[in-house]
């Protein structure tokens, strides 16, 4: 299953990157969201998948899923969320000020 999930995460990376390479700001932001989803899936996969119970200790159960990747993902999800929110507002403001949401039109001059 880990192999398959690695592939899924890889596809998420690919899709995220494809979006990252788009012109439109919205698509780019969407790309970053997909990319972080891919990263989180990778983290989860790198612990072992589907072994034991959810890592909440219970009497009589000794086999649990690896809690560390979950903790790392939680941290990462929250951070990604902060980033995405900032990025969104930033894109909104950038598009508003420059009157375009096409990144290819936001190149600028070398010397200015």
């Amino acid at each position: 299953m880990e192999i398959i999930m690695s592939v899924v995460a890889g596809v998420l990376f690919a899709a995220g990157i494809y979006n990252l390479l788009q012109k439109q700001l919205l698509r780019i932001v969407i790309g970053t969201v997909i990319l972080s989803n891919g990263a989180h899936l990778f983290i989860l996969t790198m612990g072992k998948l589907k072994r034991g119970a959810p890592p909440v200790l219970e009497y009589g159960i000794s086999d649990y899923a690896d809690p560390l990747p979950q903790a790392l993902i939680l941290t990462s999800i929250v951070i990604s969320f902060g980033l995405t929110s900032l990025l969104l507002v930033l894109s909104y403001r950038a598009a508003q000020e420059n009157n375009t949401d096409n990144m290819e039109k936001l190149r600028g001059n070398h010397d200015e």
Partner: protein
Amino acid sequence: MMSNLAVLPIIIPLVSGILLAFFHTKTPFVRHAAKLLSVISTGVAAYVFYYVVQNGTVTLETGGWEAPYGIVLVADLLAVTLVLTTNVIGLACVFYAPYSLTEQKERYYFYTFFFLLITGVSGAFLTGDLFNLFVFFEVLLMASYALITLGGEKVQLRESIKYVLVNLFSSIVFVTTVAFLYSVLGTVNMAQMAERVQEVEQQGILTTIGILLFFVFATKAALFPLYYWLPKPYTVPNPVVSAMFAALLTKVGVYSIIRMFTLVFIHDTTVTHELFIWIAGFTLVFGAIGALSTNNIKLVIAYNIIPAVGFMVMGIGIYNKTALSGSVYYMISDMIIKAALFLLAGAVAHIVGTSDLRKMKGLIHQLPLLGWLLFISAFVLAGVPPFSGFIGKLMIMQGGFADGEIAIVIIGLLSSLLILYSIMKIFVRGFWGEKDENIVIDRKTATALTWPVAFLVFLTVLLGIGAEIFYPVIDNISNQLMNPEIYIDSVFKE
């Protein structure tokens, strides 16, 4: 040595940043408080530095959870040296800021972001845990996003979005790489990683992950061919922000490369470190070319960040004690001089009202001190003795020659010339010549903006002429870097 000292350089700026957020509308108060807090922070950093020099590496197992399970902070000599340098630069910037920023920007949490940036940077230097390093990267990056967008001008928004996106991408790859490493080594503690890497038989996958991680840091460090995002965005925020970025952000990348590739990934240096040398070579050339390509003085300085990083990575790639000493020395020197140069270029642009070199002339008549500081800086950058740049480059290149890396050293020498030319162009075209009567100088601002620059430039001169004073520290650092077991033992002692 276990001590809470290790966490102070992180906590003090964190608390400072939060405190200042409460008073953000009381600008005059915040200004002075920021100065005071910065002095305190620098003082503490200096004390921690002194303590580590005297007593050796200080570690702290946060929350009392023993390494490698909890997060351990490792204040080794390299880390505390860089933390101290960071604070010193912060000090110069905080005194410069009120004269350069609009009150609006100060009101909108500039000082909070400023201190949190220092928090993130210090944390990145001090942490001994790879995932925690990621978190601190995010802290400093988020603070940098906040700072680079502060003001919300058209160009600023346009460029900062590129900055944010590229860094965001590399952050995502970073966290993924941490996961890969966790899978292979079963840990996120750097010391334990180092231990375990030594025991691994099949190393190809480790090398691969290592290279991936290297690229993450290389993107932050602005190495060839990943530096595209750097130059332009660095020219758009306020100079004090650019100065902080130039001095700190790329260097955190370099630091991380040094840390990971002297501690953990030293199992296959013929692949990894040889690659660094190649990359360093291209970085030197393209960075220097970039610096010559423009008439925007801020952009010239921004491009100059790149070859400097090339030098540092060259030292890492050569990977012997001399070269590593050089890299570390050069890094410290470059942090200071880059901050100085950005503050300087910012001061000029602020006073003259443009950063276009073609619109300046004869500034030496009005801004003599700034002119001469620029002049000295050019030689610091180019690595001309007796300034600090020379000492670092000398050791790097000696190390290179000693290991038979002839071509890279020659490239290094040539790029030094181009770097000198790029800065001298500013001096000759902007400062020399007939006095421009159209430029009206506000003496008070000009003086206030000049002193922090003078302070930093003075430091680089001191670092050069007084190299013997600092050398034992650097020697000790490179000794620790070449012997990872020292680091490992300090984490898992007794």
